[in-house]
């Protein structure tokens, strides 16, 4: 049996709206994954450190505040600096199309916009660990 996929779920930035993050944490757990939820107001540094310590294969970032263009590039940069590019990053939130394309260009594995189904998100995390 393969060990379960370990996922770090984080809410970066100042926003406290954690409904989505919590629902996704439960859905990933129900799908058999091990989920580490960081809680609120994590800086990119805190998130990358936690990903290293927890030895996760996927980082999920939930951002609803519009601050994704400031936060996500910094996370990607830190992952590169620490040679952790094997860790895949998935972003979910209110992300306009144009910004989603730019985040993927920076190396984000997938961006889930509002209305994405839990099924699609679970599959997305699985795919991230298969490449």
């Amino acid at each position: 049996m393969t060990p379960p996929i370990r996922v770090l779920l984080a809410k970066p930035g100042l926003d406290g709206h954690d409904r989505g993050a919590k629902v996704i944490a439960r859905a990933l757990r129900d799908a058999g994954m091990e989920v580490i939820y960081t809680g609120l107001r994590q800086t990119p540094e805190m998130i990358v450190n936690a990903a290293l310590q927890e030895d996760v294969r996927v980082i999920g970032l939930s951002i609803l505040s519009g601050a994704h263009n400031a936060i996500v590039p910094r996370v990607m940069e830190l992952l590169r600096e620490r040679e952790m590019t094997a860790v895949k990053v998935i972003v979910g939130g209110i992300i306009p199309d144009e910004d989603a394309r730019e985040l993927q260009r920076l190396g984000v594995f997938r961006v889930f916009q509002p209305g994405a189904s839990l099924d699609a998100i679970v599959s997305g995390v699985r795919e991230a660990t298969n490449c």
Partner: protein
Amino acid sequence: MAGTGRNFSTSGGIPVEAAYGPEDSGQPAPPPGEFPYTRGIHETMYRGRLWTMRQFSGFSTPEETNQRYRYLLQQGQTGLSVAFDLPTLMGYDADDPLAAGEVGRCGVPISSLEDMETLFDGISLADISVSMTINSPAAAIWAMYLVVAEKQGAEPARISGTLQNDILKEYIAQKEYIYPPRPSLRLVTDTIEFGVRHTPRFNPISISGYHIREAGSTALQELAFTLRDGLEYADWAIGRGMAVDEFAPRFSFFFNAHNDFFEEIAKYRAARKLWAELMRERYGTKDERSLKLRFHAQTAGCSLTWQQPYNNVVRTTLQAMAAVLGGAQSLHTNSLDEAWALPSEDAATLALRTQQVIAYESGIPAEPDPFGGSYFVEHLTTQLEAGAREYIAKIDGMGGMIPAIEKGYPQAEIARASYDYQRKVEAGEVTVVGVNRFQETETAAPEILRIESSAEAMQIEKLRRLRAKRNNEESTRTLNALKRAAETNANLMPPMLDAVRAYATLGEICAALKDIFGTWEERPQI
């Protein structure tokens, strides 16, 4: 309404029978304007005065938001409602490293009195009511507002508006807290006391179920937790030595207007009835101003879909109708593009027009509580009231809302309800049009508002100039005085006003209080 086939229930899971009759509706409620106000707080309701059309907005910079306010007032909006950005909501200045990337994104940045002066430039605060959605830093933001009013020459007794200032629902749902619960409640009580003494037309608190519902609660949980929060604030005010009839008339409420049409109407009716009864039972008041629950409603942001965004206009219309049929005193209607971004000007205008059509074309406002006496609505009202009393008794049993929050009780109840709902959507047990049924392959993007990142740089530069030109000795002196007062039981509004007049920044004021009060961290749980 959930259920296809045999089992019908409300969105919150109250079973719905095939048909209700006279035996289900209980004793007829007294007419509108009479205790316990189930049917409305005024005898004639909207015949006397329509609800206030109050669209929440703020973005980018104080200058741009000021322009949007002037536009909305020209379009016939009758009150203002300020949306602050996240750094402001969390008590950080625009130039704080933690604010990077967030300045002006979800609202207007207000770091000092200077920003507040710009925000209301050319808008007379003596003549318009202003609602401010601010919680942890509410006392400081209110102090800035009061000083702007003072500089405009507005009499404190004349200014009107509402401060959200409901910290309990932050711990429960929205999570924009700074200090631990007890010092936060002390600050709330300070503002209530100050308001009672000096600004009799201003609501110092808006006890909010809106965010509880947006976090995924049921209608029943929204109702129950909100009223229990209200009792907590009342207990603190009484603990401060105020008489119930001094402060309770200034309490206002804020509820969600969600999809389940009849359940929502029943929720507002049950809220009024329950609040009036609780105020009488617990505090023995007979003053009708203390018994009447006044509320603002906002349509449900969480019901808006990214797919087929024009469907959101229809959802918002139905939700707004429920709020009006339920007797709201003021209303915000959401814009169709809010699952995409902050509203564009066109979308915000259409949202306001939606209210105007209901107000002036539908005929609904002619009759108070048109669903009063409906077997079904009366039955739901009774069910919600009974369910809320159970929740309230349970929280009483925990020792009140603060111990309940510390245990994580309301938080866990809401998380459970929100996951249940999402699973039902996934399983197709709940239909969301355009999302899990009647889908289209392509979603046409609406024209969205883009916030230029130059807004952040502008705010940072303004703060740099402010810090250079103000009297720094005076701002430091007033901040120290605020800290010393925080160590005593003194009301913090007077030293807060002094600090604001000296152009101490929001971040400086909140940092000073953190030194004394400490901060609050939630234990992450899923």
